[in-house]
């Protein structure tokens, strides 16, 4: 699945990942796959309401999705929402490729 990243969504992603606990929760979901709120609460070491609040922010940024099963809510990561970071790398990828071309042109101009 490809998520189209709008600047507004990029802002949400950055806001969501700016918090170390949210980053940790997101990484944990990326590593372990689907987790219940209870499991995430044990992992994060903060209160369950705090974890729920963090998950809401992550959901808003489209970094996680959830499903309900009985009394439990299960969350899983949507790593494709990380496109802004990929964009960052793409920017530098394009930058350095362009600079390699310029370097080549300079070497041609230089006397050996």
């Amino acid at each position: 699945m490809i998520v189209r990243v709008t600047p507004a969504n990029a802002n949400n992603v950055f806001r969501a990942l700016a918090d170390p606990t949210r980053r940790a929760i997101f990484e944990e979901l990326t590593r372990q796959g689907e987790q219940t709120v209870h499991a995430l609460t044990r992992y994060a070491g903060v209160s369950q309401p705090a974890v729920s609040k963090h998950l809401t922010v992550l959901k808003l940024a489209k970094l996680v999705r959830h499903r309900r099963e009985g009394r439990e809510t299960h969350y899983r990561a949507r790593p494709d929402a990380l496109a802004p970071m990929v964009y960052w790398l793409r920017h530098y990828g394009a930058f350095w490729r362009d600079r390699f071309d310029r370097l080549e042109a300079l070497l041609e101009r230089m006397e050996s």
Partner: protein
Amino acid sequence: MSNPAESTRTLMIERVFQHPPEKLWRALTENPLVAQWLLKNDFEPVAGRKFQFRSEAMPKWDGVIDCEVLIVEHLKRLSYSWSALGLDSVVLWTLTPAEGGTHVRMEHSGFRLDQQAAYQGANYGWQHFFGGLERVLGELV
């Protein structure tokens, strides 16, 4: 709890240039030459020296990239830190003599899921910065 800020990505680009290492080294280390292909700078090939690359100023960014020389190994390796827009990264150049020229590898490392880089990037304005950059790049390692 692990520290997600430590998971980083590296961008790597390699190319063989049909020129000897001596010439590549000059292009990489003499600042008037560096300015011709990379960015304006006050670089000197001395480990520990702080210098700046100057890119064009844009809205919310003065265009300055703060750097410090980390490694200078004549004709072989050159490395400097690269800090801009909240991104603290490192650039490493490795030169290897190759058939009829020089193999050049550039590794730009330290891209991470980090608060600073994220916010600064967002502040800077994605649309402007990344507009039109739809090339698919295969250099991520």
